[in-house]
Protein backbone atom coordinates (compact mmCIF):
# COMPACT_ATOMS: atom_id res chain seq x y z
CA UNK A 1 0.00 0.00 0.00
CA UNK A 2 1.34 3.47 -0.79
CA UNK A 3 2.67 5.41 2.18
CA UNK A 4 0.62 8.29 3.47
CA UNK A 5 2.16 11.53 4.77
CA UNK A 6 1.29 10.72 8.36
CA UNK A 7 2.96 7.30 8.31
CA UNK A 8 6.32 6.66 9.89
CA UNK A 9 8.70 5.89 7.04
CA UNK A 10 11.35 3.22 7.32
CA UNK A 11 13.91 5.79 6.18
CA UNK A 12 14.15 9.56 5.73
CA UNK A 13 16.89 10.61 3.31
CA UNK A 14 17.90 14.26 3.56
CA UNK A 15 19.41 15.49 0.30
CA UNK A 16 18.61 14.23 -3.21
CA UNK A 17 22.09 14.62 -4.66
CA UNK A 18 23.96 11.60 -6.02
CA UNK A 19 24.31 10.10 -2.51
CA UNK A 20 20.74 10.62 -1.34
CA UNK A 21 19.16 9.67 -4.66
CA UNK A 22 21.16 6.44 -4.91
CA UNK A 23 20.33 5.60 -1.29
CA UNK A 24 16.62 6.28 -1.68
CA UNK A 25 16.12 4.16 -4.80
CA UNK A 26 18.30 1.31 -3.46
CA UNK A 27 16.44 1.29 -0.14
CA UNK A 28 13.10 1.22 -1.99
CA UNK A 29 14.41 -1.61 -4.20
CA UNK A 30 15.13 -3.49 -0.98
CA UNK A 31 11.57 -3.01 0.23
CA UNK A 32 11.80 0.02 2.55
CA UNK A 33 9.40 2.96 2.55
CA UNK A 34 11.37 6.15 2.02
CA UNK A 35 10.87 9.91 2.36
CA UNK A 36 13.39 11.76 0.16
CA UNK A 37 13.58 15.36 1.35
CA UNK A 38 15.49 18.01 -0.60
CA UNK A 39 15.70 21.78 -0.72
CA UNK A 40 15.96 21.99 -4.51
CA UNK A 41 13.14 21.81 -7.04
CA UNK A 42 14.56 18.76 -8.84
CA UNK A 43 16.69 15.79 -7.80
CA UNK A 44 20.39 15.62 -8.67
CA UNK A 45 22.14 17.78 -6.07
CA UNK A 46 25.12 19.90 -6.98
CA UNK A 47 26.61 17.66 -9.61
CA UNK A 48 23.49 16.60 -11.52
CA UNK A 49 21.93 20.03 -11.41
CA UNK A 50 19.78 20.51 -14.51
CA UNK A 51 18.22 23.35 -16.43
CA UNK A 52 14.73 24.14 -15.15
CA UNK A 53 11.96 22.44 -17.14
CA UNK A 54 10.80 25.74 -18.69
CA UNK A 55 14.17 26.12 -20.40
CA UNK A 56 13.43 23.11 -22.59
CA UNK A 57 16.94 21.66 -22.69
CA UNK A 58 17.05 18.73 -25.12
CA UNK A 59 20.59 17.72 -24.11
CA UNK A 60 21.13 18.48 -20.39
CA UNK A 61 23.86 15.84 -20.43
CA UNK A 62 26.11 18.26 -22.34
CA UNK A 63 26.92 19.81 -18.95
CA UNK A 64 27.76 16.56 -17.14
CA UNK A 65 29.84 13.44 -17.39
CA UNK A 66 28.22 10.10 -16.44
CA UNK A 67 24.71 11.41 -17.11
CA UNK A 68 23.50 7.83 -17.55
CA UNK A 69 24.22 7.05 -13.89
CA UNK A 70 21.82 9.82 -12.93
CA UNK A 71 19.19 9.18 -15.59
CA UNK A 72 18.86 5.51 -14.54
CA UNK A 73 18.33 6.41 -10.90
CA UNK A 74 15.96 9.25 -11.73
CA UNK A 75 13.93 6.67 -13.69
CA UNK A 76 13.86 4.33 -10.70
CA UNK A 77 12.82 7.24 -8.47
CA UNK A 78 9.86 7.91 -10.76
CA UNK A 79 8.83 4.25 -10.69
CA UNK A 80 9.07 4.03 -6.89
CA UNK A 81 7.04 7.21 -6.50
CA UNK A 82 4.31 5.83 -8.71
CA UNK A 83 4.33 2.61 -6.71
CA UNK A 84 4.09 4.63 -3.49
CA UNK A 85 7.39 3.39 -2.03
CA UNK A 86 9.17 6.78 -2.12
CA UNK A 87 7.69 10.10 -1.10
CA UNK A 88 9.85 12.72 -2.79
CA UNK A 89 9.54 16.09 -1.06
CA UNK A 90 11.14 18.75 -3.26
CA UNK A 91 11.60 22.35 -2.08
CA UNK A 92 11.67 21.22 1.55
CA UNK A 93 14.48 22.88 3.52
CA UNK A 94 15.27 20.81 6.59
CA UNK A 95 16.20 22.95 9.57
CA UNK A 96 16.38 20.28 12.26
CA UNK A 97 16.13 16.57 12.91
CA UNK A 98 15.00 15.60 16.39
CA UNK A 99 14.73 12.34 18.28
CA UNK A 100 11.19 11.57 19.40
CA UNK A 101 10.02 8.67 21.56
CA UNK A 102 9.76 6.10 18.77
CA UNK A 103 11.08 7.83 15.65
CA UNK A 104 13.09 10.67 14.15
CA UNK A 105 11.23 13.85 13.23
CA UNK A 106 12.52 15.78 10.22
CA UNK A 107 11.44 19.43 10.38
CA UNK A 108 11.32 21.41 7.15
CA UNK A 109 10.11 24.67 5.69
CA UNK A 110 8.79 24.67 2.14
CA UNK A 111 9.19 26.78 -0.97
CA UNK A 112 12.08 27.66 -3.28
CA UNK A 113 13.86 29.66 -0.57
CA UNK A 114 12.22 28.11 2.47
CA UNK A 115 9.86 30.97 3.18
CA UNK A 116 6.74 28.80 3.00
CA UNK A 117 4.77 26.53 5.27
CA UNK A 118 6.17 23.97 7.66
CA UNK A 119 6.26 20.25 7.12
CA UNK A 120 7.31 17.35 9.29
CA UNK A 121 8.30 13.81 8.33
CA UNK A 122 8.57 10.84 10.70
CA UNK A 123 11.01 7.99 10.08
CA UNK A 124 12.63 5.09 11.89
CA UNK A 125 16.10 5.80 10.44
CA UNK A 126 17.80 8.83 8.91
CA UNK A 127 20.40 9.19 6.18
CA UNK A 128 22.19 12.53 5.98
CA UNK A 129 23.24 13.28 2.39
CA UNK A 130 23.41 17.05 2.57
CA UNK A 131 26.54 17.41 0.44
CA UNK A 132 28.92 20.34 0.65
CA UNK A 133 29.32 24.02 -0.09
CA UNK A 134 32.32 25.78 -1.53
CA UNK A 135 35.24 26.86 0.65
CA UNK A 136 36.18 30.49 0.11
CA UNK A 137 39.41 32.20 1.11
CA UNK A 138 39.22 35.99 0.99
CA UNK A 139 41.58 38.14 -1.10
CA UNK A 140 41.67 41.85 -1.95
CA UNK A 141 38.66 42.67 -4.13
CA UNK A 142 36.73 39.43 -3.70
CA UNK A 143 33.52 41.34 -2.92
CA UNK A 144 33.47 43.24 -6.25
CA UNK A 145 30.44 42.25 -8.38
CA UNK A 146 31.65 39.81 -11.02
CA UNK A 147 33.63 37.76 -8.51
CA UNK A 148 31.55 34.62 -8.03
CA UNK A 149 32.04 31.18 -6.56
CA UNK A 150 33.46 28.69 -9.06
CA UNK A 151 30.89 26.08 -8.04
CA UNK A 152 28.35 28.91 -8.01
CA UNK A 153 29.13 29.80 -11.62
CA UNK A 154 28.76 26.12 -12.49
CA UNK A 155 25.45 25.90 -10.64
CA UNK A 156 24.06 29.04 -12.31
CA UNK A 157 25.15 27.71 -15.71
CA UNK A 158 23.66 24.25 -15.18
CA UNK A 159 20.36 25.50 -13.74
CA UNK A 160 19.80 28.83 -15.46
CA UNK A 161 21.96 28.60 -18.61
CA UNK A 162 23.79 31.83 -17.78
CA UNK A 163 27.40 32.90 -17.31
CA UNK A 164 28.61 35.91 -15.29
CA UNK A 165 30.77 37.45 -18.03
CA UNK A 166 32.37 37.03 -21.43
CA UNK A 167 35.96 36.64 -20.30
CA UNK A 168 36.17 34.69 -17.06
CA UNK A 169 39.28 33.81 -15.05
CA UNK A 170 38.83 30.65 -12.94
CA UNK A 171 40.93 30.50 -9.77
CA UNK A 172 41.42 28.91 -6.36
CA UNK A 173 42.28 25.28 -5.80
CA UNK A 174 40.92 21.83 -6.43
CA UNK A 175 39.84 19.74 -9.41
CA UNK A 176 36.38 21.37 -9.55
CA UNK A 177 38.11 24.37 -11.17
CA UNK A 178 38.94 22.28 -14.26
CA UNK A 179 35.32 21.17 -14.63
CA UNK A 180 34.08 24.73 -14.18
CA UNK A 181 36.53 26.15 -16.74
CA UNK A 182 35.55 23.43 -19.21
CA UNK A 183 31.83 24.15 -18.90
CA UNK A 184 32.19 27.93 -19.02
CA UNK A 185 34.29 27.64 -22.18
CA UNK A 186 31.89 25.16 -23.78
CA UNK A 187 29.07 27.60 -23.01
CA UNK A 188 30.82 30.33 -25.00
CA UNK A 189 32.84 32.26 -22.41
CA UNK A 190 36.53 32.92 -22.97
CA UNK A 191 38.53 31.44 -20.10
CA UNK A 192 42.07 32.81 -20.45
CA UNK A 193 43.53 30.86 -17.55
CA UNK A 194 42.79 28.51 -14.65
CA UNK A 195 44.82 29.60 -11.64
CA UNK A 196 45.52 26.77 -9.16
CA UNK A 197 47.20 27.55 -5.84
CA UNK A 198 48.19 23.95 -5.23
CA UNK A 199 49.41 21.62 -7.92
CA UNK A 200 48.86 18.35 -9.66
CA UNK A 201 52.30 16.91 -8.83
CA UNK A 202 50.91 15.29 -5.68
CA UNK A 203 48.79 12.93 -7.78
CA UNK A 204 51.88 11.57 -9.52
CA UNK A 205 53.33 10.67 -6.13
CA UNK A 206 50.44 8.26 -5.56
CA UNK A 207 50.68 6.08 -8.69
CA UNK A 208 48.98 3.05 -7.10
CA UNK A 209 45.92 5.04 -6.10
CA UNK A 210 45.75 6.56 -9.58
CA UNK A 211 46.10 3.19 -11.29
CA UNK A 212 43.29 1.80 -9.12
CA UNK A 213 40.95 4.56 -10.26
CA UNK A 214 41.04 4.48 -14.05
CA UNK A 215 37.74 6.32 -14.36
CA UNK A 216 39.14 9.22 -12.36
CA UNK A 217 42.13 9.32 -14.71
CA UNK A 218 39.85 9.36 -17.73
CA UNK A 219 37.83 12.16 -16.13
CA UNK A 220 41.05 14.13 -15.56
CA UNK A 221 42.25 13.54 -19.10
CA UNK A 222 38.82 14.61 -20.34
CA UNK A 223 39.11 17.91 -18.48
CA UNK A 224 42.64 18.47 -19.78
CA UNK A 225 41.53 17.82 -23.36
CA UNK A 226 38.60 20.20 -23.01
CA UNK A 227 40.88 22.92 -21.71
CA UNK A 228 43.29 22.42 -24.62
CA UNK A 229 40.44 22.53 -27.10
CA UNK A 230 39.30 25.91 -25.78
CA UNK A 231 42.81 27.32 -25.42
CA UNK A 232 42.60 27.55 -21.61
CA UNK A 233 45.96 27.68 -19.86
CA UNK A 234 46.59 26.16 -16.42
CA UNK A 235 48.84 28.07 -14.00
CA UNK A 236 49.65 26.11 -10.84
CA UNK A 237 51.28 27.48 -7.65
CA UNK A 238 49.61 30.83 -8.34
CA UNK A 239 46.70 32.85 -6.99
CA UNK A 240 44.63 35.91 -7.78
CA UNK A 241 45.74 38.49 -5.23
CA UNK A 242 43.87 41.58 -6.42
CA UNK A 243 40.72 42.48 -8.33
CA UNK A 244 40.58 45.76 -10.25
CA UNK A 245 37.33 47.70 -10.69
CA UNK A 246 34.86 49.00 -8.12
CA UNK A 247 31.38 48.25 -9.41
CA UNK A 248 32.48 45.46 -11.74
CA UNK A 249 35.53 43.34 -12.34
CA UNK A 250 37.82 44.89 -14.97
CA UNK A 251 40.99 42.88 -14.41
CA UNK A 252 42.71 40.67 -11.84
CA UNK A 253 46.31 40.30 -10.68
CA UNK A 254 47.83 36.84 -10.86
CA UNK A 255 50.73 36.22 -8.46
CA UNK A 256 53.09 33.25 -8.07
CA UNK A 257 53.03 31.45 -4.74
CA UNK A 258 55.81 29.71 -2.85
CA UNK A 259 55.37 26.21 -1.40
CA UNK A 260 53.45 27.59 1.55
CA UNK A 261 51.17 29.68 -0.67
CA UNK A 262 52.94 32.94 0.21
CA UNK A 263 52.77 35.41 -2.69
CA UNK A 264 56.17 35.87 -4.37
CA UNK A 265 56.94 39.60 -4.44
CA UNK A 266 57.18 41.24 -7.84
CA UNK A 267 55.56 38.36 -9.74
CA UNK A 268 52.18 40.06 -10.37
CA UNK A 269 50.63 39.82 -13.83
CA UNK A 270 47.52 41.82 -14.75
CA UNK A 271 44.88 39.87 -16.68
CA UNK A 272 41.93 41.73 -18.17
CA UNK A 273 38.61 39.96 -17.59
CA UNK A 274 35.02 40.83 -16.67
CA UNK A 275 34.42 38.03 -14.17
CA UNK A 276 36.34 35.79 -11.81
CA UNK A 277 35.09 32.39 -10.62
CA UNK A 278 36.84 31.31 -7.41
CA UNK A 279 36.76 28.49 -4.88
CA UNK A 280 39.15 26.50 -2.71
CA UNK A 281 37.55 23.11 -2.54
CA UNK A 282 34.44 22.12 -0.65
CA UNK A 283 33.26 22.04 2.95
CA UNK A 284 30.89 19.25 4.05
CA UNK A 285 27.50 20.56 5.18
CA UNK A 286 27.18 19.16 8.70
CA UNK A 287 24.75 21.40 10.57
CA UNK A 288 22.03 18.76 10.95
CA UNK A 289 24.59 16.09 11.86
CA UNK A 290 26.44 18.08 14.51
CA UNK A 291 23.16 19.19 16.05
CA UNK A 292 22.32 15.48 16.42
CA UNK A 293 25.66 14.91 18.11
CA UNK A 294 27.41 13.00 15.31
CA UNK A 295 31.18 13.00 15.82
CA UNK A 296 33.42 14.71 13.24
CA UNK A 297 37.01 14.26 12.11
CA UNK A 298 39.47 16.54 10.34
CA UNK A 299 40.11 15.65 6.70
CA UNK A 300 43.47 15.98 4.91
CA UNK A 301 42.31 19.25 3.36
CA UNK A 302 41.52 20.80 6.72
CA UNK A 303 37.71 20.64 6.79
CA UNK A 304 35.48 18.70 9.17
CA UNK A 305 33.66 15.58 7.98
CA UNK A 306 31.55 12.97 9.77
CA UNK A 307 33.15 9.97 11.44
CA UNK A 308 31.65 6.94 9.68
CA UNK A 309 32.20 3.23 10.00
CA UNK A 310 32.59 0.83 7.09
CA UNK A 311 28.79 0.67 6.66
CA UNK A 312 28.27 4.46 6.53
CA UNK A 313 26.95 4.65 10.10
CA UNK A 314 27.55 7.87 12.03
CA UNK A 315 28.37 7.74 15.73
CA UNK A 316 24.68 8.29 16.54
CA UNK A 317 22.55 5.15 16.51
CA UNK A 318 19.98 5.16 13.72
CA UNK A 319 21.71 7.88 11.69
CA UNK A 320 23.72 7.11 8.54
CA UNK A 321 25.55 9.46 6.16
CA UNK A 322 26.79 9.26 2.57
CA UNK A 323 28.51 11.46 0.01
CA UNK A 324 30.34 14.68 0.81
CA UNK A 325 29.11 14.71 4.44
CA UNK A 326 31.67 11.97 5.13
CA UNK A 327 34.47 13.87 3.35
CA UNK A 328 34.62 15.40 -0.10
CA UNK A 329 35.11 12.80 -2.82
CA UNK A 330 32.90 13.54 -5.85
CA UNK A 331 29.71 12.23 -7.41
CA UNK A 332 30.82 8.66 -8.18
CA UNK A 333 31.81 8.07 -4.56
CA UNK A 334 28.56 9.66 -3.40
CA UNK A 335 26.51 7.23 -5.53
CA UNK A 336 28.46 4.28 -4.20
CA UNK A 337 28.16 5.32 -0.55
CA UNK A 338 24.44 5.95 -0.92
CA UNK A 339 23.96 2.36 -2.10
CA UNK A 340 26.14 1.01 0.70
CA UNK A 341 24.20 2.89 3.35
CA UNK A 342 20.86 1.71 1.92
CA UNK A 343 21.97 -1.91 2.12
CA UNK A 344 22.99 -1.55 5.75
CA UNK A 345 19.79 0.27 6.69
CA UNK A 346 17.77 -2.53 5.07
CA UNK A 347 19.78 -5.08 7.06
CA UNK A 348 21.48 -6.53 3.96
CA UNK A 349 25.19 -7.10 3.58
CA UNK A 350 26.47 -5.03 0.67
CA UNK A 351 28.52 -6.82 -1.98
CA UNK A 352 32.30 -6.78 -1.75
CA UNK A 353 32.50 -5.02 -5.11
CA UNK A 354 30.66 -2.01 -3.72
CA UNK A 355 32.85 -1.93 -0.60
CA UNK A 356 36.10 -2.13 -2.58
CA UNK A 357 34.89 0.52 -5.01
CA UNK A 358 34.13 2.86 -2.11
CA UNK A 359 37.53 2.28 -0.49
CA UNK A 360 39.38 2.92 -3.78
CA UNK A 361 37.51 6.16 -4.39
CA UNK A 362 38.03 7.28 -0.78
CA UNK A 363 41.79 6.78 -1.20
CA UNK A 364 41.70 8.85 -4.36
CA UNK A 365 39.80 11.56 -2.48
CA UNK A 366 42.59 11.58 0.09
CA UNK A 367 45.26 12.15 -2.56
CA UNK A 368 43.13 14.90 -4.09
CA UNK A 369 42.57 16.62 -0.75
CA UNK A 370 46.26 16.64 0.10
CA UNK A 371 47.26 18.08 -3.29
CA UNK A 372 44.92 21.05 -2.99
CA UNK A 373 44.74 21.72 0.77
CA UNK A 374 45.32 25.39 1.58
CA UNK A 375 48.79 26.09 3.01
CA UNK A 376 49.26 28.49 5.90
CA UNK A 377 50.94 31.26 3.86
CA UNK A 378 47.75 32.17 1.98
CA UNK A 379 46.75 34.85 4.47
CA UNK A 380 49.84 36.88 3.46
CA UNK A 381 47.86 38.04 0.43
CA UNK A 382 45.26 39.76 2.65
CA UNK A 383 45.50 43.52 3.11
CA UNK A 384 44.26 45.03 6.35
CA UNK A 385 41.24 46.50 4.51
CA UNK A 386 40.32 43.19 2.81
CA UNK A 387 36.86 42.13 3.94
CA UNK A 388 36.96 38.68 5.52
CA UNK A 389 33.30 38.46 6.56
CA UNK A 390 31.16 39.47 3.59
CA UNK A 391 27.90 39.70 5.56
CA UNK A 392 29.07 41.92 8.40
CA UNK A 393 31.81 43.65 6.36
CA UNK A 394 34.56 42.83 8.86
CA UNK A 395 38.10 43.41 7.56
CA UNK A 396 41.22 41.32 8.03
CA UNK A 397 42.66 44.23 10.02
CA UNK A 398 39.87 44.03 12.57
CA UNK A 399 40.12 40.25 12.87
CA UNK A 400 43.90 40.54 13.39
CA UNK A 401 43.33 43.22 16.01
CA UNK A 402 40.97 40.89 17.88
CA UNK A 403 43.59 38.15 17.73
CA UNK A 404 46.76 40.20 18.27
CA UNK A 405 45.65 42.95 20.66
CA UNK A 406 42.65 41.40 22.36
CA UNK A 407 43.92 37.85 22.61
CA UNK A 408 41.16 35.99 20.72
CA UNK A 409 42.24 32.41 20.02
CA UNK A 410 39.19 30.91 18.33
CA UNK A 411 36.37 31.65 15.90
CA UNK A 412 33.85 32.16 18.66
CA UNK A 413 35.81 34.87 20.44
CA UNK A 414 36.64 36.63 17.15
CA UNK A 415 32.93 36.55 16.35
CA UNK A 416 31.97 38.09 19.68
CA UNK A 417 34.59 40.83 19.33
CA UNK A 418 34.11 41.70 15.64
CA UNK A 419 30.78 40.18 14.48
CA UNK A 420 32.67 38.16 11.84
CA UNK A 421 30.49 35.13 11.13
CA UNK A 422 27.43 36.58 12.81
CA UNK A 423 25.60 37.54 9.63
CA UNK A 424 23.13 35.82 7.36
CA UNK A 425 25.41 33.05 6.14
CA UNK A 426 26.34 32.12 9.72
CA UNK A 427 30.02 31.93 8.89
CA UNK A 428 29.74 29.62 5.89
CA UNK A 429 31.76 32.04 3.74
CA UNK A 430 34.25 33.42 6.30
CA UNK A 431 34.54 30.45 8.68
CA UNK A 432 37.66 28.80 7.26
CA UNK A 433 39.46 32.16 6.96
CA UNK A 434 38.55 33.36 10.47
CA UNK A 435 39.59 30.02 11.98
CA UNK A 436 42.95 30.32 10.24
CA UNK A 437 43.52 33.95 11.29
CA UNK A 438 42.62 33.04 14.88
CA UNK A 439 45.23 30.29 14.78
CA UNK A 440 42.51 27.81 15.66
CA UNK A 441 43.60 24.21 15.67
CA UNK A 442 40.60 22.46 17.19
CA UNK A 443 37.64 21.68 14.95
CA UNK A 444 34.78 24.10 15.05
CA UNK A 445 32.59 22.06 12.72
CA UNK A 446 29.55 23.91 11.42
CA UNK A 447 28.05 24.67 14.82
CA UNK A 448 24.96 26.47 13.72
CA UNK A 449 21.74 26.55 15.59
CA UNK A 450 19.69 25.81 12.49
CA UNK A 451 20.64 24.34 9.17
CA UNK A 452 18.69 26.94 7.22
CA UNK A 453 17.05 30.24 8.05
CA UNK A 454 13.64 29.93 9.66
CA UNK A 455 11.40 32.85 10.47
CA UNK A 456 10.88 33.77 14.10
CA UNK A 457 7.20 32.96 13.68
CA UNK A 458 8.03 29.38 12.72
CA UNK A 459 10.31 29.01 15.72
CA UNK A 460 7.73 30.44 18.07
CA UNK A 461 5.28 27.80 16.87
CA UNK A 462 7.90 25.19 17.62
CA UNK A 463 8.23 26.40 21.22
CA UNK A 464 4.60 25.98 22.17
Amino acid at each position, binding site marked *: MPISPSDTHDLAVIGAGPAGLAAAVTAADLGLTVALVDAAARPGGQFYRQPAA*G*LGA*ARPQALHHSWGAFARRAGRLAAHRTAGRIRYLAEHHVWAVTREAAHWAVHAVRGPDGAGARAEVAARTVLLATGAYERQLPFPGWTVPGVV*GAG*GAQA*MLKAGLVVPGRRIVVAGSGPLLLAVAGSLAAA*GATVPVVVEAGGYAGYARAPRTLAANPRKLVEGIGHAAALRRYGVRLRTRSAITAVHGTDRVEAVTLTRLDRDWRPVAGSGLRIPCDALAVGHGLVPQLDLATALGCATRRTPDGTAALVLDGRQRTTVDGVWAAGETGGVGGAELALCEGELAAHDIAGRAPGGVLLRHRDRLRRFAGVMAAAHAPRAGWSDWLRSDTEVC*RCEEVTAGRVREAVGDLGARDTRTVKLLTRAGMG*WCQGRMCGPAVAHLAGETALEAGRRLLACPVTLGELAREER
Partner: protein
Amino acid sequence: MHRPPEPRMKRPRARRPRPTPADLVQAAPGPEFEITLDGRALSALPGQSIAAALWAAGVLSWRTTRRGGRARGAFCGIGSCFDCLATVNGTPNQRACLVPARPGDAIITQEGHGRADLTV
Protein backbone atom coordinates in the same frame (compact mmCIF):
# COMPACT_ATOMS: atom_id res chain seq x y z
CA MET B 1 31.76 44.25 -30.49
CA HIS B 2 34.73 45.18 -28.35
CA ARG B 3 36.94 42.31 -27.30
CA PRO B 4 39.98 42.93 -25.16
CA PRO B 5 43.28 41.67 -26.58
CA GLU B 6 44.48 38.32 -25.33
CA PRO B 7 48.16 38.64 -24.63
CA ARG B 8 50.25 35.50 -24.26
CA MET B 9 47.32 33.23 -24.88
CA LYS B 10 47.06 30.65 -27.60
CA ARG B 11 43.93 31.17 -29.59
CA PRO B 12 41.54 28.31 -30.26
CA ARG B 13 42.32 26.71 -33.59
CA ALA B 14 39.17 27.56 -35.47
CA ARG B 15 37.18 30.75 -35.13
CA ARG B 16 33.59 29.66 -34.94
CA PRO B 17 30.78 31.90 -33.75
CA ARG B 18 30.54 31.83 -29.96
CA PRO B 19 28.15 29.20 -28.72
CA THR B 20 25.74 30.18 -25.97
CA PRO B 21 24.78 28.09 -22.91
CA ALA B 22 21.43 27.45 -24.61
CA ASP B 23 23.18 26.11 -27.73
CA LEU B 24 25.20 23.75 -25.60
CA VAL B 25 22.15 21.93 -24.23
CA GLN B 26 19.97 22.54 -27.31
CA ALA B 27 17.46 24.49 -25.30
CA ALA B 28 14.11 25.48 -26.71
CA PRO B 29 12.83 27.62 -23.84
CA GLY B 30 9.22 28.64 -23.39
CA PRO B 31 8.27 32.20 -24.36
CA GLU B 32 10.26 34.91 -22.57
CA PHE B 33 8.49 37.34 -20.27
CA GLU B 34 9.17 40.67 -18.63
CA ILE B 35 10.42 41.48 -15.14
CA THR B 36 11.66 44.83 -13.88
CA LEU B 37 14.73 45.87 -11.91
CA ASP B 38 14.22 49.28 -10.30
CA GLY B 39 11.56 49.95 -12.92
CA ARG B 40 13.74 48.98 -15.89
CA ALA B 41 12.24 46.22 -18.05
CA LEU B 42 14.31 43.06 -18.55
CA SER B 43 13.38 39.77 -20.12
CA ALA B 44 13.50 36.41 -18.35
CA LEU B 45 13.01 32.83 -19.44
CA PRO B 46 10.64 30.40 -17.75
CA GLY B 47 12.42 28.42 -15.03
CA GLN B 48 15.30 30.86 -14.56
CA SER B 49 15.94 32.09 -11.04
CA ILE B 50 15.79 35.85 -10.58
CA ALA B 51 19.59 35.88 -10.28
CA ALA B 52 19.93 33.95 -13.56
CA ALA B 53 17.58 36.34 -15.35
CA LEU B 54 19.61 39.30 -14.06
CA TRP B 55 22.92 37.70 -15.10
CA ALA B 56 21.44 37.05 -18.54
CA ALA B 57 20.74 40.78 -18.80
CA GLY B 58 24.34 41.54 -17.80
CA VAL B 59 23.35 42.72 -14.30
CA LEU B 60 25.72 41.44 -11.59
CA SER B 61 24.61 43.44 -8.54
CA TRP B 62 21.23 44.26 -7.00
CA ARG B 63 21.94 44.97 -3.36
CA THR B 64 24.03 47.42 -1.38
CA THR B 65 25.61 46.52 1.94
CA ARG B 66 24.46 47.91 5.28
CA ARG B 67 27.71 49.53 6.37
CA GLY B 68 29.77 50.38 3.32
CA GLY B 69 26.88 50.70 0.85
CA ARG B 70 28.84 48.46 -1.54
CA ALA B 71 27.23 46.72 -4.50
CA ARG B 72 26.65 42.95 -4.25
CA GLY B 73 24.92 40.23 -6.23
CA ALA B 74 24.99 36.44 -6.48
CA PHE B 75 28.15 34.81 -5.16
CA CYS B 76 27.69 31.16 -4.08
CA GLY B 77 24.85 30.47 -6.52
CA ILE B 78 23.35 27.76 -4.27
CA GLY B 79 21.62 29.56 -1.41
CA SER B 80 24.38 29.56 1.22
CA CYS B 81 25.96 33.04 1.12
CA PHE B 82 22.91 35.36 1.19
CA ASP B 83 24.79 37.93 -0.89
CA CYS B 84 22.06 37.84 -3.56
CA LEU B 85 19.25 39.16 -1.33
CA ALA B 86 16.71 41.20 -3.26
CA THR B 87 13.41 42.88 -2.62
CA VAL B 88 10.89 41.10 -4.84
CA ASN B 89 7.35 42.43 -5.19
CA GLY B 90 7.81 44.33 -1.94
CA THR B 91 9.16 41.43 0.12
CA PRO B 92 12.80 42.02 1.12
CA ASN B 93 15.56 39.48 1.79
CA GLN B 94 14.66 36.98 -0.93
CA ARG B 95 17.53 34.83 -2.15
CA ALA B 96 17.50 35.68 -5.86
CA CYS B 97 19.53 32.57 -6.72
CA LEU B 98 16.73 30.33 -5.38
CA VAL B 99 13.53 32.20 -6.20
CA PRO B 100 12.25 31.58 -9.74
CA ALA B 101 11.44 34.64 -11.85
CA ARG B 102 7.72 35.07 -12.59
CA PRO B 103 6.10 37.27 -15.20
CA GLY B 104 5.78 40.83 -13.91
CA ASP B 105 8.12 40.43 -10.92
CA ALA B 106 9.26 43.84 -9.68
CA ILE B 107 12.76 43.60 -8.23
CA ILE B 108 14.16 46.50 -6.31
CA THR B 109 17.78 47.01 -5.38
CA GLN B 110 17.85 46.22 -1.70
CA GLU B 111 19.64 48.76 0.44
CA GLY B 112 21.03 47.54 3.72
CA HIS B 113 18.61 45.46 5.78
CA GLY B 114 15.68 45.76 3.47
CA ARG B 115 13.59 45.40 6.55
CA ALA B 116 14.58 44.16 9.93
CA ASP B 117 11.96 41.57 10.79
CA LEU B 118 14.65 39.09 10.38
CA THR B 119 15.06 35.60 11.01
CA VAL B 120 17.99 33.55 12.11
